[in-house]
C-alpha cells in the first residue's frame, strides 16, 4: 500500500493484516487508526468533511514516510488517509510500521502521525446541528512534532 489518499472507506483490520504480507522477517507491527468522534471540543458532530490539496498531499506523505524509513530500521511503512465526507465512527487515517523489533515500529508510527498532523495538507470541517466550521489546529500537535527535531534538521 505505502501511500494512499482516497474518498472510499477502508477496513483497518484488512489493512493491518496486509502489513505483515507473509514477510518472515517481520517481528513487530505497530498501527494507528484515527476515527471520527461524535464530540469535539464540546460540540456534537453530525458529519466530518476532509479537504486536501491534491498531489501535494501525496508528496507530503511520501516525504514523511521516507524520513521515517531513514530514521529507523523499518521493513515497511504505510499511510492511508480518507478525504471527502465521513460519517461518525468511520476510520479517517491508518498508519502502520513493520520492523524486526518493536522499538523502531513504535517510534516511527508515532513520528509519522506527529508529522502528518502538522505537515500534510488536510483540513477538517465539522458539521454540527448549528452549522459547519473548520477545525482549529492544536498547539499540542505542533509540540508533539517538535519532539522529533534534531539539531542538524531545520525543516519547517
Amino acid at each position, binding site marked *: 500500500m505505502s501511500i494512499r489518499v482516497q474518498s472510499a472507506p477502508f477496513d483497518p483490520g484488512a489493512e493491518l493484516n496486509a502489513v505483515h504480507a507473509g514477510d518472515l522477517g517481520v517481528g513487530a507491527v505497530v498501527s494507528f487508526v*484515527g476515527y471520527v468522534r461524535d464530540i469535539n471540543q464540546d460540540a456534537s458532530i453530525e458529519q466530518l468533511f*476532509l*479537504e*486536501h*490539496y491534491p*498531489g*501535494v498531499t501525496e*508528496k*507530503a506523505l511520501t516525504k514523511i514516510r521516507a524520513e521515517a524509513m531513514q530514521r529507523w530500521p523499518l521493513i515497511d511503512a504505510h499511510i492511508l*488517509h480518507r478525504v471527502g465526507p465521513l460519517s461518525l465512527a468511520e476510520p*479517517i*487515517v491508518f498508519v502502520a510500521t513493520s520492523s524486526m523489533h518493536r522499538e523502531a515500529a513504535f517510534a516511527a508510527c508515532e513520528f509519522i*502521525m506527529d508529522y*502528518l*498532523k*502538522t*505537515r*500534510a*495538507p*488536510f*483540513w*477538517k*470541517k465539522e458539521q454540527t446541528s448549528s452549522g459547519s466550521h*473548520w*477545525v*482549529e*489546529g*492544536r498547539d499540542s500537535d505542533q509540540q508533539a512534532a517538535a519532539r522529533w527535531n534534531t539539531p542538524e534538521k531545520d525543516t*519547517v
Partner: protein
Amino acid sequence: MLTVQFLARYREELGCESEQLAWQNEWHNIDHVRQFLIARGGVWSVLSDPRIMCARNQDVCSLQEPLQAGDELAFFPMVTGG
C-alpha cells in the same frame, strides 16, 4: 507571472480559489508575496494568520522559501488531518 492558490478556510473567507499575479522583481521569497496580498487590506488580513502555511510548486515549505517568476504558490491554514 505567479499563480497563487488559497485552500480550505482561506479560500472560503477570501471567496477566491486562485489568482494570477503579475511578477514583481522585489519578490525574493514567499513572505514578500504574502505581504503584498495583506497590503490590499480588508479580507486579505486573513493571511496575517501567525499559523499560516504555504507550498511552492507542489511542495510544502516555509515562508522564507525563495521563489521565481512562473512559480505556483499556495497559502493555507494550519493543517488538521489525521
